[in-house]
């Protein structure tokens, strides 16, 4: 198992540089306030900070105490205070005001990460503490979570952009891309789809143009960049994940590349924080596997391990000495990891069987393929009636809506009524959000639009038809999932059983039932190195696309770098998508690098749209 890469697969660039960069900048900021200081840090920034600088580094730079900011003022006695935060920073106001009341004067520094917005300063001013604090920026926008996965750790991006239409973060994305192209050479080939992708791309280009020519001569290390909006493909993100890494994320929530395994996994009375990345040898072999293979693999591994332990029986003293000094530590480490992952598997199995996971997956597949819609609808209804889980119910409703181009009015009303009865009336706001984002909609009265549209498009030229489609789609944002699925062949025809051990295509990440739309688009465009021949798909997706090849750089790029592809997910990507593209890479001799605003999954998407405070 654990598919090896093709021998000609290119090497990944070294992204640890990004970490060093962020760390150095942080240290510089810390040293701006010499002497002992306390660091107050917003909860959201806690984990990313942990990945950049551990406590001993902070101590070295005279950070005395580290406070996680929850809304109460903490008492501390040090001269200086540092506050690191995102956009929300009202707590700093409280903190400073509390000190003021108590008649203490201290030095304060507010550090905004990844960037300081004008509005931040304004709020400080309005609260009357602008003069009491100094502000700074920690331009820390790219955290390498793994050798091929960079995260901007901006989970709020999804809601801010796709629901509120707030474009603040686009600038941050452009800055991040600019940083990457400065460090690793500019990208000869750029592709993208979606409005946000286009805006980020344009802003980024502007930044590059303003820069003087120094970096332009660099040989590009990464040959292609592909930008993709999350709303191009909601479906994939809404599906239950069945690849190990995705499943771990769905079940335990991977946060900033590490996961908290509770007592039920560690089989002790303590929870354990485990870093999940390529360095974990056991995990690295199973992360991209379909869950059904994982157990078998782990038990095989356990047997091998046992055999290796057993070798020491026939050893003489010298061999034993060797064994203890060289191999034992490695074996023990492997042993520890193995038992952890077996524990995790067991715990997943237990949770999944309780909820009748098979039924759920069956319903999802039916929705994806578009058959037995009535049956699926009543399954969802029962799901709601039984109060299985508010987020899960919501997810299924959205999946139904998107795959069916909106719910029929009767279902739309009845499902919503049921939902409100089960989970509380405040979800009325959630529904209004979902509708605005196009995740849960009502079919336009009699979906005759499609019929009219197709007739019209036969009559008039393509261009005019495109315009008419635009006009229609502005009336109701439709997903056209069924048509896209047919065009791109997203539901593989299965003859016989799909062998999940030896996957044929990217559909394996969804048990062979569905090829992730986002990944398919990336595959198709890379194959053509343009959008040519995909006009119909683009029209159905109803998003603006772009492609740009810089011939001067393309010539300079080595064939190796041309097989390195950076895929940028604006609004988050799931581990299933990462696994699918890793698979594609192995098949074609590419290597994919992922840049996402945050790693996401169906639950996170739904929570972002939810109005109810947990």
């Amino acid at each position, binding site marked *: 198992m654990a598919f090896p890469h093709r021998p000609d697969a290119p090497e990944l660039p070294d992204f640890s540089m990004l970490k060093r960069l962020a760390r150095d900048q942080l240290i510089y900021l810390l040293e701006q306030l010499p002497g002992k200081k306390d660091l107050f840090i917003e909860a959201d920034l806690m984990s990313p900070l942990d990945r950049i600088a551990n406590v001993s580094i902070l101590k070295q730079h005279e950070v005395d105490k580290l406070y996680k900011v929850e809304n109460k003022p903490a008492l501390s006695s040090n001269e200086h205070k540092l506050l690191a935060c995102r956009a929300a920073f009202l707590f700093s106001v409280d903190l400073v005001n509390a000190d003021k009341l108590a008649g203490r004067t201290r030095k304060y520094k507010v550090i905004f990460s990844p960037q300081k917005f004008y509005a931040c300063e304004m709020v400080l001013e309005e609260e009357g503490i602008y003069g009491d604090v100094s502000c700074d920026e920690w331009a820390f926008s790219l955290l390498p979570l793994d050798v091929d996965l960079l995260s901007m750790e901006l989970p709020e991006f999804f809601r*801010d952009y796709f629901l509120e239409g707030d*474009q603040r973060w686009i600038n941050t994305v452009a800055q991040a891309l600019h940083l990457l192209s400065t460090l690793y050479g500019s990208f000869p080939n750029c592709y993208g789809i979606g409005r946000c992708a286009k805006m980020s791309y*344009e802003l980024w280009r502007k930044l590059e143009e303003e820069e003087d020519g120094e970096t332009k001569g660099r040989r590009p290390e990464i040959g292609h960049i592909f930008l993709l909006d999350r709303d191009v493909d909601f479906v994939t993100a809404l599906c239950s994940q069945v690849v190990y890494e995705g499943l771990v994320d769905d079940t335990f929530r991977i946060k900033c590349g590490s996961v908290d395994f509770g007592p039920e996994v560690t089989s002790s009375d303590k929870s354990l924080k485990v870093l999940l990345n390529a360095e974990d040898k056991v995990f690295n072999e199973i992360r991209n596997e379909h869950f059904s293979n994982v157990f078998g693999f782990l038990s095989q591994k356990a047997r091998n391990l046992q055999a290796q332990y057993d070798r020491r029986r026939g050893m003489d003293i010298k061999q034993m000495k060797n064994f203890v000094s060289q191999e034992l530590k490695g074996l023990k480490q492997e042993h520890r990891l193995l038992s952890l992952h077996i524990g995790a598997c067991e715990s997943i199995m237990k949770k999944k069987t309780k909820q009748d996971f098979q039924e759920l997956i069956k319903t999802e597949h039916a929705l994806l393929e578009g058959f037995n819609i009535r049956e699926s609808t009543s399954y969802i209804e029962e799901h709601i009636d039984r109060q299985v889980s508010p987020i899960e119910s919501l997810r299924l409703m959205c999946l139904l809506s998107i795959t069916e181009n909106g719910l029929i009015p009767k279902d739309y009303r009845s499902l919503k009524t*049921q939902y409100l*009865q089960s*989970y*509380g009336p405040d979800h009325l706001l959630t529904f209004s959000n979902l509708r605005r984002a196009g995740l849960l909609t009502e079919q336009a009265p009699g979906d005759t639009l499609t019929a009219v549209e197709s007739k019209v498009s036969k009559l008039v030229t393509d261009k005019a038809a495109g315009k008419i489609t635009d006009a229609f789609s502005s009336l109701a944002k439709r997903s056209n999932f069924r048509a896209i699925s047919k065009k791109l062949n997203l539901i593989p025809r299965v003859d016989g059983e799909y062998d999940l051990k030896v996957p044929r295509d990217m559909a394996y990440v969804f048990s062979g039932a569905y090829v992730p739309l986002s990944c398919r688009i990336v595959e198709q465009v890379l194959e053509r190195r343009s959008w040519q021949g995909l006009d119909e798909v683009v029209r159905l997706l109803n998003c603006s696309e772009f492609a740009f090849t810089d011939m001067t750089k393309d010539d300079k790029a080595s064939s190796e770098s041309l097989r390195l592809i950076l895929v940028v997910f604006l609004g988050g990507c799931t581990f299933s998508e990462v696994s699918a593209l890793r698979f594609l890479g192995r098949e074609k001799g590419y290597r994919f690098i992922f840049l996402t605003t945050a790693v996401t999954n169906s639950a996170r998407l739904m929570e972002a749209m939810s109005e109810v405070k947990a």
Partner: protein
Amino acid sequence: MWETWLWAWCPKESQKADEYLREIQELGQLTQAVQQCIEAAGHEHQPDMQKSLLRVGLEGRAGQGWEGGGMDSWGSSLCCPLALLRRLPLETSIPMRVRRVLTARGDGEQGKYRYKQLTIQVLLDRYGKPRAGATLPPLSTPSHSLLYPLAIQICEYLRLPEVQGVSRILAHWACYKVQQKDVSDEDVARAINQKLGDTPGVSYSDIAARAYGCGRTELAIKLLEYEPRSGEQVPLLLKMKRSKLALSKAIESGDTDLVFTVLLHLKNELNRGDFFMTLRNQPMALSLYRQFCKHQELETLKDLYNQDDNHQELGSFHIRASYAAEERIEGRVAALQTAADAFYKAKNEFAAKATEDQMRLLRLQRRLEDELGGQFLDLSLHDTATTLILGGHNKRAEQLARDFRIPDKRLWWLKLTALADLEDWEELEKFSKSKKSPIGYLPFVEICMKQHNKYEAKKYASRVGPEQKVKALLLVGDVAQAADVAIEHRNEAELSLVLSHCTGATDGATADKIQRARAQAQKK
């Protein structure tokens, strides 16, 4: 001795000079001679004298044809003053400038190269920049504007990079051009754009600022149109009180901070109504401002929605208020009423009805708390009913179900779960027999098993319909009977399901039976 040579250097006596030169050369003192000449020139204030000195210096250099690192940088700096001397009208104040160039060069070190270039730039600026001093002749005089082409020639002569040279001169020229009050705005703008095109390093916004400084706002706006970086246009537009234009330019730039700056300007400049109208036409700015209001000025947010007649969002706003802001029940109900009204106006009957239901539920929950005690407020309808059943108030629960039209299916699920939680098996059995279950009897089996009551579960398993019979039997652990049913059904899927439940020795016989049935089915 070379002093003599120097003095001999007059047009009339050029032959003599040549002789002197040769002499000096033979003495090996040429380098020194030339250097001194040039230094002298630098200190000389008489243009004629300066000219001579420099020419001598240059001749000397040419005559000797030296090579030598330090001297190379000499060449270019020498060219500069000479070129100027040849072409510039002599009455302008050359000496100072020449001296500057030469002192910079005089150090002769490579490290000073930068300084030298800087000096040349200063020099160019002096020639290129129109001066507004009263002591100088009017700027539009032909003699003065002639200097621009000259300056450009100097740049080309010195092979200065475009950004440092030609662009600067052009920018200066444009700044001078905008002050020509007798030429129309269009003509000036066009003339400037024709000359400048998109020469790198030229800032149209600087030129526009100059135009504005001369009171030519319209011209400034026209010039800003040529500025490729929309972000650069904004500050000046704001200064000129063209805030709306500034807003669209800021949006074009994609810089949200800039948009925000303009928004705050607009907010202070316009009255509220106009401000909102402006926002309405700029969705990007509107969403940005809304985000700000959500955190800082909730009341403004409401006004925004009101202005737009956005009843849907107004409704949502009041709903949110009913949860966040209001403590008292009366206040909350009132907020919900406002929300419901808004939803009606938005023609969203669903939301309006749901809101009205919620008002009724809140009032009822309040009553329940008063009469029965316990926690009811803010429970969902489902949970309210469950709580009632768990508290033994079955009648009330049924009344609630009727009042709020809880569908049968939900009611059954709800009662089933609640009664099983209470382990009130008697009541559950009564309930199961009250009429035909709308959810079938499999859920009864499932829930009893969840409470580990196999005895009760078996009761219901017998009532499960044929399609789910096998499942039910497996749930209660009766593998043998499940196998019989599956064989009877001749259902392949069911057979394999049972087979997967056969474990170890105990079900060995059953497994065999299934295999036999399968084989038989295949024979047929």
